[in-house]
């Protein structure tokens, strides 16, 4: 469904140019869920931005269902590939009601029957209709993230890019949102690319994952391999150790991968 080959992404110009992603490749099949794990600054979110056209300065090849993507994305692409952002407080326009927020993509892509679609979208993410005319500040973090998910799905996309969708949420809410995402993927046969710094979240959600560091993929592995504690790269092993909580003894063995 989505194929990424030798992707390089840059930010800025001239002396301030920043080579954020340095030649990564991966592919996801239809209905699959691919995870990208890494620490902040590893370039994992940048990959998503390049895919959905928010980081125009890239080279390499990107294919969506066998069609090569160019620097400029059309409206149709935007309908088929949607993104859910990390911060449920920042990703919703503070002055728009939920209704307006959900109506906007429908309007851009010239859907009819906007009202019915909004109501259905709200139902699907488990929000009742009393939320329709509220403003984001009247919602809790989890509810906002549900709205963000609803917005991403309201145009019936095929691929959804998830950028740390739960890292700003409390754990109990995180569980709800993760369950919701999993259910929607099953029901609609969606393709996910999930980015997270939390190995447990990726391991829980994805079939296959890649570990990123300094703009490169250091290791790509199936979930079974991770499950069986057999990652080959030392950095992956360290992440795996760290995900198990505080243990004074193991920490001294940590390497700084700067």
């Amino acid at each position, binding site marked *: 469904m989505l194929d990424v080959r030798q992707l390089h992404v840059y930010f800025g110009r001239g002396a301030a140019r920043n080579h954020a992603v340095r030649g990564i490749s991966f592919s996801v099949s239809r209905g699959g869920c691919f995870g990208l794990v890494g620490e902040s600054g590893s370039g994992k979110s940048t990959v998503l*931005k390049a895919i*959905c*056209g*928010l980081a125009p300065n890239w080279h390499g090849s990107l294919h969506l269902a066998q069609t090569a993507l160019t620097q400029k*994305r*059309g*409206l149709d*692409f*935007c*309908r088929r590939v*949607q*993104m859910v*952002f*990390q*911060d449920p407080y*920042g*990703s*919703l*326009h*503070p*002055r728009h*009601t939920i*209704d*307006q927020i959900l109506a*906007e*993509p429908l309007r*851009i*892509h010239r859907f009819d029957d906007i009202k019915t679609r909004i109501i259905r979208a709200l139902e699907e993410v488990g929000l009742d209709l*009393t*939320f329709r*005319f*509220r*403003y984001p500040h*009247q919602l809790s973090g989890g509810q906002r993230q549900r709205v*963000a998910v609803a*917005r991403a799905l309201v*145009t019936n996309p095929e691929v959804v890019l998830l950028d740390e969708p739960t890292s700003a949420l409390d754990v109990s809410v995180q569980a709800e949102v993760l369950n919701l995402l999993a259910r929607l993927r099953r029901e609609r046969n969606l393709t996910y690319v999930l980015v997270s710094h939390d190995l447990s979240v990726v391991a829980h959600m994805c079939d296959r994952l890649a570990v990123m560091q300094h703009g490169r993929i250091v290791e790509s592995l199936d979930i079974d391999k991770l499950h069986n504690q057999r990652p080959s790269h030392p950095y992956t092993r360290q992440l795996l150790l760290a995900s198990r909580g505080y243990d004074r003894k193991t920490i001294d063995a940590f390497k700084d991968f700067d």
Partner: protein
Amino acid sequence: MTFPALRGAREYLLSGAPRSALQARCQRVWFSWRTFSANPVAVAGLLIVLALVSAAVIAPWITGSDGLDPELSRRLLPPSAAHWFGTDELGRDIYDRIIWGARITLYIVTLVGAIVVPIGLLIGTIAGYVGGIVDTVLMRITDIFLAFPRLILALALVAALGPGIENAVIAIALTTWSPYARIARAEALTLRGSEFILAARAQGASTGGILLRHITPLCVSSVIVRLTLDMAGIILTAAGLGFLGLGAQPPTPEWGAMISTGRQFLLDQWWVPTIPGIAIFIVSLGFNLLGDGLRDVMDPRHNA
């Protein structure tokens, strides 16, 4: 008898789950009003501005004349029961002129707002959001206007366009937009990278659509707040142009021009220049107080 209706209104405004877009908007306005009205100083400002507006609207019913025709037999009368604020050097009632002058002040205020806000928003949001060379060029132009002696530019424009209140206001507006462009740009710059803008772009929204529907509404409040805070300055600049003989033409009862022509009477007939001076002061104060209050309501960063 109105209790149920009142309770209904209360419920309508306070319910956590609004049932329509209209109700949602009403609630937001109501909530802002609640915050605003908790600040007595701001309310005082609003009252002054409302008084200005109502004086302008009902001027024909609360004045005895249009304050334009000279009546040379009753020149320079001190304030009395017949002439509350006295009469001026051509025997016109100063109270009548002040009231009719409210229309002009209101006109100045509205016209400047109507010119400055769109220009500032347009240039600022485009520069801030689009960035790159567009930003550089637009900001360079803004800087030139910022570096230009303001009153000089206004004077030149008025001189070029011909004296008169419209031209004075246009001149003021054309010299005051640059700080607004800067404010709008600063806001647009911070908004540019925010996730909801990225989300809109990811949905395929066009640049124009994002500017219009997402960025501009968020810049408007800080621009409006700045405008109310500047309004005093604008009124004073208009008055200053009037003072230099470039604003309203006689016999228009523009307050600045009234001070200007009345200033030679300061020693013997103090009321002639002083009353319009006080009028300008009060209205400026009103806009300033209002602006302070609005800043607290609209700008969340200033909420204590």
